[in-house]
């Protein structure tokens, strides 16, 4: 990369190449790298996320299929996930709290990425820990929800509220999502520790890869975390609200 002065013309060409079809063809037909704006680590995370999209899509589509094909009435999520607070039944309130919790964790994650690139490692690490805290709180609420439903007699093969397929769809979809959140929390803690210690400033080698890391790992971690939030947006809409 040469350090020539940036002219307006230069910037315009650069912008055109980023967002035009012509630029896309040029990127794909160029030597060695198709994704000019993404390192291999980021590109690989994106590709993993695409494959994960298909996994979750399959769950949600199979849920749609069983829900459409059953002749028994589908249980009302609005009532099943209602909580009694102060003697009043509020529909779907736990799920709403979980949604806001996860969105908040996404917000703190986005800011952690910013501070990591600004080399403010303490702030970045603290924000990642806050993100991990909200993630753990989410899993905790999910555990509470599962316990409540299991006590009420919901099983993968049947439940007292209606169509038998409700249980299997519920446990598969929310279970797989909760698993993703749990893994995310673990990785957030690992990377927050590395950021806090300044591993990426001094070029300390990772315990597993034996390679030097870069602050970009925070952004890659963020991609995974936001994806988990994204999946929840779809689960919330299709499973809980539909």
């Amino acid at each position, binding site marked *: 990369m040469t350090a020539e002065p940036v002219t307006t013309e230069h910037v315009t060409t650069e912008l055109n190449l980023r967002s035009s079809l012509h*630029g896309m063809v040029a990127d794909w037909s160029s030597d060695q790298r198709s*994704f*000019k704006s993404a390192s291999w680590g980021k590109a690989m995370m994106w*590709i993993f996320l695409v494959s994960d999209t298909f996994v979750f899509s399959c769950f949600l589509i199979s849920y749609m299929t069983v829900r459409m094909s*059953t002749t*028994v009435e589908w249980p009302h999520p609005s009532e099943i996930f209602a909580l009694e607070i102060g003697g009043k039944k509020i529909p779907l309130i736990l799920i*709403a709290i979980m949604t*806001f919790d996860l*969105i908040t964790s996404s917000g703190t994650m986005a800011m952690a990425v910013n501070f990591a690139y600004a080399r403010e490692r303490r702030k970045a690490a603290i924000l990642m820990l806050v993100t991990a805290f909200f993630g753990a709180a989410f899993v905790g609420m999910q555990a509470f929800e599962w316990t409540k439903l299991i006590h009420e007699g919901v099983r993968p093969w049947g439940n007292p509220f209606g169509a038998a397929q409700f249980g299997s769809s519920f446990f598969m979809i929310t279970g797989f999502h909760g698993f993703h959140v749990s893994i995310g929390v673990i990785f957030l803690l690992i990377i927050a520790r590395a950021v806090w210690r300044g591993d990426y400033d001094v070029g300390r080698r990772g315990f597993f890869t034996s390679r030097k890391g870069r602050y970009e790992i925070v952004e890659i971690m963020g991609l995974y975390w*936001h994806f988990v939030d994204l999946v929840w947006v779809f689960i919330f809409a299709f499973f809980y609200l539909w």
Partner: protein
Amino acid sequence: MGLHLRILLSVVTSPTGEMMTATTDDTTHSHVQVAQAAQPAAQAHGQQHPIKLYLLVWGLLFVLSACSYLVDYFDFQGYLRWFLIVVFMLLKAGLIVAVFMHMAWERLALVVAILAPPMAVLVLMAMMAWEGDYTNYLRVIFFGA
């Protein structure tokens, strides 16, 4: 989706003009960073955007989530319910992907590679909707439910 992102960005950028600098600045930015720290090229392209933008998106996500919750709270039914749920869902998904996951600032080559394949899911969805409907029809006929 792409259109939605552009509109969103223009909405986000217009009040302060901050974002414009953030985007057009990219080349200048990387030169500065290379000069300063001699970091690898990938690092120089770091996605740094104003915190204000993140806070705005965060707020919007809260409002949109509240809206979709209210759809259930006020117990809207039928096509209105489905329409509102899907609209709020897509708006939220678009905001997360565009801003939080920085898709709005990536090159089109990556954007298309990531966002186009999942469209195949719509085909599977259509096929399975057809299939589910047919299974339901058979059950009604043969089991008289």
